């Protein structure tokens, strides 16, 4: 898909009260998000399938449309390092990456959260090599689970753009000051073209004030201080870490508030931490993240027509993990299935593990099963999700044959849609 063809389609626009609707792919939605959020310093390195994000931003900065400094760094490691200092100097910062770029930044991700810097990064979820793959998988971002970053998973290109704006609003709050990772599935979102509304700048400016950290918390010769120096076991390292935890917990409500306030202004919101669809009377609920959710919605609509009481609980934030929301959901539901588009070798699907863990202390513990799907970008279609729901009904009725399974593998010529038991 060449840039020129997208340019042509972008010229066809519709203006509404809240923004300008254009047809674009998820990557450009991310670029527009950074633009209207008025990111000030961008440092990025290209990687398939993210490259268009930074190409578009380069167009914006070169044309002067976006008043930002774009550092064309020589690696992702340097990208995050440059944003850390830029943020520490008081600038609003943005970048995008994917898979190997994200994992290359791993050390620096730890630095950003420890330094309490509200950096926003879009990650195009892509499988890790070897073998080389450029297609959708969540392993790359899940592997950053422990870095202290908030993590969002987007279902639509619109959500990518909107979440960028919402994240700055949450992250830059004085008592939050944590970075956020916004994930979009490779190709399903990054390269698929759909209508996206770019919010009017004036409305975004009203919703999102400029980044204005206290001068004594920035690199500023008028307030000389050293950031990140040695902190001993007895003198405050654990306390600094506890403060990060407190901020993450505080963020739960702030994320929900930011989402609903966004909804009031722009008419779109995304369910806060856990996005529920037809769960009120559901007997069986599937949980997943990213574009798996939109396929699941279609399956649910079909099954509902057949009289099945099924629902979707989309995990929008993996960090902070929506423990309370999941426990509340569990009050009403008999069985929960969790789809993982990733796998932790030596155990099981990480989303499944975390949901299970959250429910250990819940008042009501529904039956649980984990399903590994879509690894390496393998397509998960409506039929497959319906099969998973059917299997969940067996689980609900006490006929669970496995704790967790890996679905849709070409196991042998006689079993080309195999479901293989993990445990």
């Amino acid at each position, binding site marked *: 898909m060449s840039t020129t063809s997208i340019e042509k389609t972008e010229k066809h626009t519709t203006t509404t009260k809240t923004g300008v609707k254009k047809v674009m792919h998820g990557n450009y939605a991310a670029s527009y998000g950074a633009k209207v959020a008025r990111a000030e310093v961008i*440092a990025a390195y290209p990687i398939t399938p993210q490259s268009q994000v930074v190409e578009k931003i380069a167009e914006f900065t070169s044309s002067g449309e976006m008043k930002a400094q774009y550092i064309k760094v020589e690696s992702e490691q340097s990208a995050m*390092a*440059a944003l*850390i*200092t830029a943020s520490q100097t008081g600038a609003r910062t943005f970048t995008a990456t994917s898979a190997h770029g994200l994992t290359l930044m791993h050390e620096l991700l730890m630095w950003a959260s420890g330094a309490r810097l509200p950096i926003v990064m879009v990650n195009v979820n892509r499988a890790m090599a070897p073998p080389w793959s450029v297609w959708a998988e969540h392993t790359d971002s899940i592997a950053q689970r422990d870095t202290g970053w908030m993590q969002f998973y987007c279902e639509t290109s619109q959500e990518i753009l909107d979440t960028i704006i919402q994240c700055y609003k949450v992250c830059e709050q004085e008592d939050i000051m944590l970075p956020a990772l916004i994930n979009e599935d490779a190709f399903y979102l990054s390269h698929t073209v759909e209508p996206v509304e770019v919010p009017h700048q004036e409305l975004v400016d009203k919703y999102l004030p400029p980044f204005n950290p206290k001068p004594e918390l920035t690199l500023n010769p008028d307030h000389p201080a*050293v*950031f990140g*120096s040695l902190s*001993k076991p007895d003198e*405050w390292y654990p306390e600094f870490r506890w403060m990060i935890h407190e901020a993450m917990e505080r963020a739960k409500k702030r994320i929900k508030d930011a989402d609903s306030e966004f909804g009031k202004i722009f008419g779109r919101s995304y369910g806060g931490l856990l996005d529920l669809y037809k769960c009120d009377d559901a007997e069986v609920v599937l949980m997943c993240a990213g574009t798996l959710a939109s396929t699941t919605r279609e399956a649910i609509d079909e099954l509902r027509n057949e009289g099945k009481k099924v629902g979707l609980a989309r995990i929008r934030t993996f960090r902070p993990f929506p423990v309370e929301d999941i426990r509340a959901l569990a009050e009403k539901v008999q069985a929960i299935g969790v789809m993982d588009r990733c796998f932790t070798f030596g155990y099981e699907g990480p989303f499944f593990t975390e949901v299970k863990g959250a429910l250990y202390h819940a008042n009501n513990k529904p039956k649980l099963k984990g399903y590994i799907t879509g690894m390496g970008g393998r397509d998960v279609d409506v039929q497959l999700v319906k099969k998973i729901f059917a299997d969940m009904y067996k689980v609900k009725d006490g006929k669970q044959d496995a704790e967790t399974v890996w679905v849709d593998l070409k196991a042998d010529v006689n079993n080309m849609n195999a479901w293989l038991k993990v445990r």
Partner: protein
Amino acid sequence: MGKLTIPEEEYMLEGHMGCLGCGGTLAMRYLLKGLGKDTILSIPACCWAIMMGSFPYTNLKVPMHNSAFEVTGAAISGIEAALKVKGKEHINVVGFAGDGGTIDIGFQALSGCVERGHNVFYVCYDNEAYMNTGIQRSGSTPVGAWTTTTPVGKTGDWKKAPKKNAVEIMVAHKIPYTATASVAYPEDYIKKVLKGKETKGPKYYQVLSPCPTGWKYPPEKTVEIGRLAVQTCIYPLYEVVNGRYNITFKPAKKKPVKEYFELQGRFRHLPEKVIEEIQQSVDKDWEILQRKVEMTKDL
């Protein structure tokens, strides 16, 4: 200033954790005297990350960012970009790193930063090994030196590979200003820093910072050894201004490298033959440097 040959004001304070006679502290002290108050530093993991004191104390009167080990070049790029956005480009942006964080693990970020042409200072305090982690060899360790990873032993396992010439690598990036310095010649060093303040674009300084702990000599000899390094032409003091070479200190009488080695335990084991080879190599490099001065004088 009266009879003082360097600015009086201190931006580096006493009460720091540097070893007795640390050359790296002098490298910072003189740098800040040249740069002044409107300065932001970024330093990676290195001796200096510990020297300034632990939370909540600092021995500096300028702000400083601690960064991951390998990213100094990127860190200063970020500060410079943010200052541009804020309209505060008068503030000096300085990366201050050891030789490891410059020419080994930090090399990519440094190269990328100067290639992009950021308006920053990069100062490498060269103590010629990974000192903070316990004197392991670096790309900047000179031929013949003992380190904990070239521990000589019975097989003569001293550092054999030639010292990576970071200075010439920076010159090859065609940056506007590159210079060597030694803590034994603070006037020369500070003059070069002031020149850097007048120059837009990337400025690279490599400051020889003798280390009593790692080079194995009594601490009172730090300045003396820093002086001998220049007088033997092992560490010539020169600058390259837009490709034009200029030697800023020519020793009145070039001293033999043996005098330099004799003072340091890290060279104690060197056989005569190796010292002779090193002497020839130093002589050759000094000759080449002088020719470069001649070749580029009209640039």
